[in-house]
Each structure stands twice: as C-alpha cells, then as structure tokens.
C-alpha cells in the first residue's frame, strides 16, 4: 500500500481537513463578529465607524487584502463541505441497517445534528452574501454599510432568519471546536476541562454578540441618524 497517498483518503486525514478548515472558519467568525461590533460606535464628523471599517477592508493591501481573505474562506469552506460530504457517505455506508430504537447516552443533540446545522449555515452564508454584499432582499446603497444593516434588520423575518442561523451556529460551533481539538490530538487530563470551556466561551461570545445586532435594531437601540 502506498502510505504517502493514503493520508488524504483516510478517515483520519479527512477529519484533519475538517479540523484545520474548521479552525480557519472559527477564526473568521470571531474576526467578523469583532469588526461588526463597530456598529455600536457613535458617528465621527458624520462618518459611521462601521462604514469606515468597510472602506478599510476593501482598500487594505491596495484592494488585494479582501480577495486574499475571500480566497482563503472559499477554499476553507469548499474543503470543509467536501470532507463533510465524504465522511457522511462513509458513515452512512458503515451502518446500512438502522436500529429499531437507539438510545443515546453520551452524544448531544448538537453532535448528532452537525450535518443539519451545517447545511442551514451554508444556506445562511449564501443568503447573507446576497443580502449585504450583493444587495438583495432589503433596500441597499453601496458603501452605506451602517444604513444597510439597520434597514435590513428592521424587517422582522430577516432578523428572525439571522437569529435562527446564529442558533445553528451556536450548536455547530460548540461541538465543532471541542471536536477539532480531539481530532488534532489535543487531549491531556490537565487541559481537558478547559477544552469544553474554551469551546463554550468562543461560541457564547460569537453568537450572543451576533444576535445582539438584529435585536438592537428591532428594539430601536441602533437606528438611522
């Protein structure tokens, strides 16, 4: 058997791809959340810090930065989905006949619904890009990020969908962060408690802050002018 060629086709190799692309995507959602926090900063000389930040993102490295980030994200997402589809197929094939009434003792609803939460997140990402980058669904003005967000989230079904997607992200992220550490072999009795705490903390931070945006708009805390 050719061992060099087998790593990327092995079950553990595919899991490592899931884990490494997962780390990249976790890094993105944390950064994205932190950047968006600028929606709460007051306007300076009539310029919203969030709009300023958007200009920075589009112009850094002479406009190349955003494409480097986008390229990395597209590759990471594609590999994450590709590995998930292959692993799911292996798992389905491994149990052709289901149990009459299986009883679960250790797994969580989150761990058993990673594929569902992942699929909803994939749909959400497409919706989110069409919404705030392309400018579909709600009134949109190029470059007026703050204004687009506020008018966008003032529509209850849009806010509702964002909040639903963030609950899926919470479920996906907590099991995913813990799971990727196990896959990469980060397991030690002195740090094992910390793994779950770290997963919970990152998840809580990202999801609670992200949910606060549509809620702040719906309740009128963040408004136009």
């Amino acid at each position, binding site marked *: 058997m050719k061992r060099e060629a087998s790593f990327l086709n092995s079950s553990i190799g595919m899991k490592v791809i899931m884990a490494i692309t997962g780390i990249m995507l976790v890094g993105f959602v944390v950064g994205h959340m932190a950047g968006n926090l600028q929606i709460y900063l007051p306007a300076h000389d009539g310029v919203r810090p969030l709009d300023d930040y958007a200009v920075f993102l589009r112009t850094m490295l002479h406009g190349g930065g955003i494409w480097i980030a986008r390229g990395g994200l597209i590759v990471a997402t594609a590999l994450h989905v590709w590995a998930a589809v292959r692993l799911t197929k292996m*798992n389905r094939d491994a149990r052709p006949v289901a149990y009459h009434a299986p009883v679960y003792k*250790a797994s969580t609803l989150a761990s058993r619904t990673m594929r569902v939460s992942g699929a909803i997140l994939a749909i959400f990402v497409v919706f989110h890009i069409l919404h705030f980058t392309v400018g579909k669904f709600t009134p949109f003005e190029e470059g007026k990020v703050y204004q687009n967000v506020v008018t966008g989230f003032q529509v209850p079904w849009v806010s509702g969908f964002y909040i639903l997607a963030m609950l899926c992200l919470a479920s996906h992220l907590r099991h995913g962060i813990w799971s990727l550490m196990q896959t990469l072999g980060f397991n030690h009795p002195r740090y094992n408690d910390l793994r779950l705490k770290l997963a919970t903390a990152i998840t809580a931070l990202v999801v609670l802050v992200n949910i606060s945006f549509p809620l702040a708009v719906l309740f009128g805390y963040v408004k136009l002018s």
Partner: protein
Amino acid sequence: MEKHLNLTLQVWRQKNAQDPGGFKNYEAKGISTEMSFLEMLDVVNEGIIKKGEAPITFDHDCREGICGACGMVINGRPHGLRERTTACQLHMRSFNDGDVITLEPWRASAFPVLRDLLVDRSSFDRIIAAGGFISAPTGSAQDANCLPIPKDNADRAMDAAACIGCGACVAACPNASAMLFVGAKVSHLGLLPQGQPERTSRALDMVAQMDAEGFGTCTNHGECEASCPKGISLDNIAMLNRDYLKASLTYRPEVESGGF
C-alpha cells in the same frame, strides 16, 4: 430476594447473511431475577427447541465478562443499559415484570450478521493482524526491571489493554466507527517501550485496515466510551489521532537500497 418475571422478547431473527431478517416476539415466563441475561435466553431457547423451531443464535463464551464474545443490542443499547457491563454479566434483576425487551445484533457493515444476533467480527482480527502486535525475542527471559516504565504509562497502557474487543463501541457509535477499539490497541502498545519499534507503521497500517473494512468515522459523540463494558476512554482516540498524524508526517518510504 428472588422474584419471577414474565417478559416479552422482541428478537431479530435472520436465517443467514442473505436473509433480510425481521423481528419476532417470544414470551419469557417465570424468569428468575437471579438469572443472567444469557441464562434467560437459554431458557427461552429450550422452549423454542421443544416446539421444534430453530433457537435464537447468539455469541457467548466465558460468561464472566472478560472474553468479549457475547454482545447484543438490548433495548437500543449495546450490552444493555447498565454501565460497564457485558450482556453475560447483566442480570434479570435489572428488569421489571411485564417489560418488553428488544434484541438486535451489532449493526455495522463491517460486522455482517451471520444468524440472528450473531455477527462476524473477524474485521477486528484483520485490524489487529495489520499492526496490533510487537516484535519480541522468544529466547531466554530478559532481566526483570531492565526496561523502566513510568507508573503513569503502565497504568494507562493497562487501562487501554482492558479492551476485550467485543465491538460494543462500533455498535453504539452512530457512525459505526471502530476508533475506540483501534485507539485502545494503539495506546496499549504505544505507551510501552516494547511497542515503540512498530509505533509509526502500527498507526498507519491499523487505520488503513480499519478504513478498508468499511467502518465509519469518528465524529466525537462519545457513545463508544459510554457503552464500553471496560470503560475505555476517549483519550485513546486522541492518542490514535496524534500517532496517526505524526506517523503520516514522518513516515519514511521504503527505498530500494541505501539512502537515509
């Protein structure tokens, strides 16, 4: 206090590997709470044989929880709901009068059903043959204590070595993955000095065989650990992942001659 129970068994009956199989109900009357689960099945089988029908086939050997031969999914759980207990060590006092008990074989494509509750677990043997061994001299015995082993490593290796290869981890895993079994074997040998010469090839070859047998992949549910009659820990899966990653990165391909 001994009591007697009347139970209904819903048992998976399947003539051979080709037969699609299906559930059939049996009444188990006057079952003593002192009986083990397999003794209860023996009593039910005697009744079936007297009626001139084929008895329920199930695997068993030592009946004292150490051989790993027995095993069936009892009420949706491998070896039943009791923690750290093999099916043979499960006693009827764990059940109540009037209970309906569902019995199914391990469900995994790598464990084909041979008949009723009996599955073919030779895929585990092939994984062991692929790398679950050490090279040892067979001559005179070494001096005692000539190989220092930290106490902690000896304990962890012993914990991993407690695996009896029953396959409950595969049966419990929603993905029918054998990672806990392979993890236990890799940790057991990899934590000891005697296991070092083959450590790299062991991880690569056992995982390659595991994948070739058609087991699923680990999604870190933890069901395997919860159903293991010997309490094998998920830590062993992390160690397997570490060994496999390290081996994949550092493995040296065989060269025709010379080279380094």
